[in-house]
């Protein structure tokens, strides 16, 4: 003991001591990581639950709108297809058209204007064709996607094309 005190403290280390310390630190680090993962995983899944449910909802490919066949000529029905809004238009000429209502510019919800027979986005003035979904004027870069429509006695079936 009296011999050792003359040496600097860091020299009196046993040769094997460094290895055991390293092994201990590695084990403690691994245990710490395991704990962090065990805590973080349930919390992540918990917070992500609504997002996961929304992902499942986007997988919806078909929806039946009950009694929508009674929609008068020249009017529109807004509905939720999966997680996003969509339009069902019964045109004056009797044609049924359904398309997404999410503007391709910045994601606002568009509206059908029966007087002008066009689809208009109030956010930045984008205009789409109410039959084909083609972007006619304003900032929208792409057309609105059309859905398939099948009218029956019970309602209107809308499905992804």
């Amino acid at each position, binding site marked *: 003991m009296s011999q050792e005190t003359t040496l600097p403290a860091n020299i009196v280390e046993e040769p094997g001591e460094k290895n055991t310390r390293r092994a201990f630190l590695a084990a403690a680090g691994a245990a710490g990581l395991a704990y962090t993962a065990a805590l973080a995983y*349930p*919390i992540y*899944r*918990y*917070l992500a*639950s609504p997002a996961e449910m929304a992902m499942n909802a986007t997988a919806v490919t078909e929806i039946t709108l009950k009694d929508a066949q009674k929609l008068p000529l020249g009017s529109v029905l807004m509905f939720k297809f999966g997680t996003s809004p969509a339009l069902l238009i019964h045109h004056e000429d009797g044609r049924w058209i359904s398309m997404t209502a999410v503007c391709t510019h910045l994601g606002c919800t568009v509206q059908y204007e029966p007087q002008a027979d066009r689809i208009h986005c109030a956010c930045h003035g984008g205009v789409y064709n109410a039959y084909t979904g083609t972007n006619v004027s304003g900032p929208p870069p792409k057309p609105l996607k059309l859905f398939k429509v099948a009218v029956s006695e019970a309602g209107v079936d809308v499905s992804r094309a």
Partner: protein
Amino acid sequence: MTSKAMYEWVDERLGLSELAAFARHKTVPVHSQSFWYYWGGISLFFFLVQCFTGVLLLVYYRPGAEAYESVRQITFVMHFGWLIRSAHAWAASLMIFSILVHMFSVYFMKAYRKPREFGWLSGMALLGIASVFGFSGYLLPMDELSYFATKVGLQIPSAIPWIGAGLANMLRGGSDVSEFTVQRFFALHVVVLPAIFLPLLGFHLWLVQRHGNAVPPSVEALPPEQRKTMPFFPNFMRKDLAMWLISLNILALLASVFPWSLGKPFDPLAPAPMGIHPEWYFMSPFEMLKLLGFVFSGHYAGLGEIAGILLFTLGIVLWLLIPFYDRSKESGQRARAAHYFGLLAIFALLATTVIGYWTIR
């Protein structure tokens, strides 16, 4: 910038080295009862768990009319929601339990004596707020059990003469437990109580730093060279953190093996279910009032309730004021009375709790 230069830049502005020097010089006494020093830290750990899991529950919880539905969603729809809710409920019990252990260890080590009176009083206030946290949180799921527990619990303040009925109506937001009650209990639970609890906790911890750990009278009697200490940093800190880890493991085990259940939604017209009883930490006062109700039955029943509340209040006041009448500096020989009062309190709490659980079966 090198890390040394960066440290110096921050140190010059925030005084980190003073803090480091403080941590180096802080010591914790070592003696046969040092084990009890960990319980304040364990209580703090469970409080932090409550803050954390509470915020997570807040993400989906909706007070008011939708309360039950949102808790059902958390428990059965959201991934791991059952685990987070269960951890919150279990940690609440464990927090009250460790505060009680902490309180009794402080009591029997006589750590409330001069200059630590404020430590004792603030600690008792923290325990009081913690039990209100427990009571208000218990209602939030709005299932059958929590509905009736709150209904019964609020009978206690309503037995106070003159102001009781008004006070109970104020707490309930009406003459019966309803959506209004959940809404205000929610405000109490997540805003009002934390706003009182946190500064008080800061004060309590600051006092602990200021006065250091108290030693029991038997150690106090030793000459200074025979008293042993260990450095707070890192020695005690390491043990403290080990205790936190053990607490976390116990909590994880309880929360996952015994998940907290959710009963049927409350129905104000349904009769109370069998075996209705409060949380374990309210069992003792609940049972004491019930026993006094038996003693003063019939014509004097109302008197019994008031007597019970008076007796209970007297006990709590005596308990609170202990630092002011048990001031003896001697090695505990002269302060036997306080010791016996403490044992009596433990006996009364345990006995009434046991009777309470025995009679609900």
